């Protein structure tokens, strides 16, 4: 019997664990960590957990992970599938302007998607982004409460 773990849970688990190990990474916490460095790492952890939770079915999650982690040289780049490539290049060649150029910039991996899957990926991306936002808000509110209590 297989139970379904929701993607929210996967994201929360991954993110929290990476937050726990935030300071151990980077030379065993040598000295103090600048807030900028720490915030960048938090951001990376957040996006990584989001991409992991989304799974490899999504084009954006794969592209996001590829962007965040160092690329392996022996893996070939994921080119668009044949029919996608024909469609994408055909649209570029015909000069059809859909106004989705800006959307392709924002959605990771959007530049090699055709319009149809671009919209689909956008929908999933928005959904996971809102999940991430809610997760982080809850964490922050909880930690803020705990800090407040401890300060008394």
């Amino acid at each position, binding site marked *: 019997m297989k139970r379904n773990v929701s993607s929210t849970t996967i994201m929360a688990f991954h993110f929290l664990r990476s937050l726990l*190990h*935030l300071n151990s990474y980077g030379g065993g916490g040598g000295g103090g960590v600048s807030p900028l460095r720490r915030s960048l790492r938090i951001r990376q952890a957040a996006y990584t957990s989001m991409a992991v939770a989304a799974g490899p079915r999504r084009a954006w999650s794969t592209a996001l992970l590829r962007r965040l982690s160092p690329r392996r040289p022996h893996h070939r780049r994921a080119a668009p599938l044949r029919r996608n490539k024909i469609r994408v290049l055909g649209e570029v060649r015909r000069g059809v302007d*859909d106004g989705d*150029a*800006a959307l392709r910039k924002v959605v990771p991996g959007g530049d090699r998607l055709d319009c149809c899957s671009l919209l689909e990926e956008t929908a999933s991306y*928005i959904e996971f982004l809102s999940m991430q936002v809610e*997760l982080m808000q809850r964490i922050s509110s909880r930690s803020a409460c*705990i800090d407040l209590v*401890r300060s008394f």
Partner: protein
Amino acid sequence: MATPRSSANVNEEFFLTDWNALISSDKILEISGSSNLSSYNARSLPSNDSMGEKIMRPCFNNQSFPDEMESSFDLSAACQIHVSLSHSDFTLTNSCCIERKHKGKKRKTVSESGRVLPQSPSPKNAEGKEQSNVSPESSKSSREREEMKQIAEVSPGLSSSKSAAKQAQLISHDSDALKEEYIHIRAKRGQATNSHSLAERVRREKISERMRVLQNLVPGCSKFLSMKLAAVNPELNFDNPHIFPKDINVLGEAANPGRAPEFKTPNPHLHGVGQIEPEILMATAIHQLCSMAQTPNVWDEELQSAVQMGFIPQSPSSDG
């Protein structure tokens, strides 16, 4: 058209191997700090859910966290966080799952798609019944049913006028589905049976369907788009008062004012392909995405103090 089964399997294998490589890369291991993750993702996808559960439980029951951890939450509290989070209403995952099923179903054979049909729950309202009356049991009709359910699930709060419009649209949708089968069927009155226009119509329907999903996702979008949708699809009849978008700058009010719109102004001409005007929706989506993507960690007080110290170049409007 390539054989559907083999291409699907090849894609899956490709994704899985690549995915495992990505997940188990060094950076992620360093960040997450354990090798459990690689084993977690090394299994095939359907079973990773159970693995996730197993990993979670020993981690959370352990309670042997390092004491030098300065972040003030513990994982038991975090358990409560994500448990409460999972209880929150994410019906949108359902819609996206159905989208996924709908997309994958194209690759299945007729028998398989016929099998999917009795498993799925009965359609919610009379729209499904209309559909079952008209169309025979074919792969296209089962796909239609999934689409209908997805539409019905994604937009539960439609007013009566809109649901009437949806019914009218679904009738036309249904006749389109019969034409989609690349066999020459008697065409609906006033519609061409040219294969090109058929393919275009199929593509247009796909895009409009995804537009609708996005519409429901992006808050405040349906008001702008209802007018445009009515302009493109003559079958739709919308009764509710819509706000006519004079200018795209109206969007500036919605999200934070710091973002300059990067998109072009929408051109009023419809393209030859006949797509629904995507500019305004995309503009709204981009706006929301930019505001969401650029500020994922508004919660971090240290980040705000960092801004104060000038580490992070931002607009000077933020305060500590």
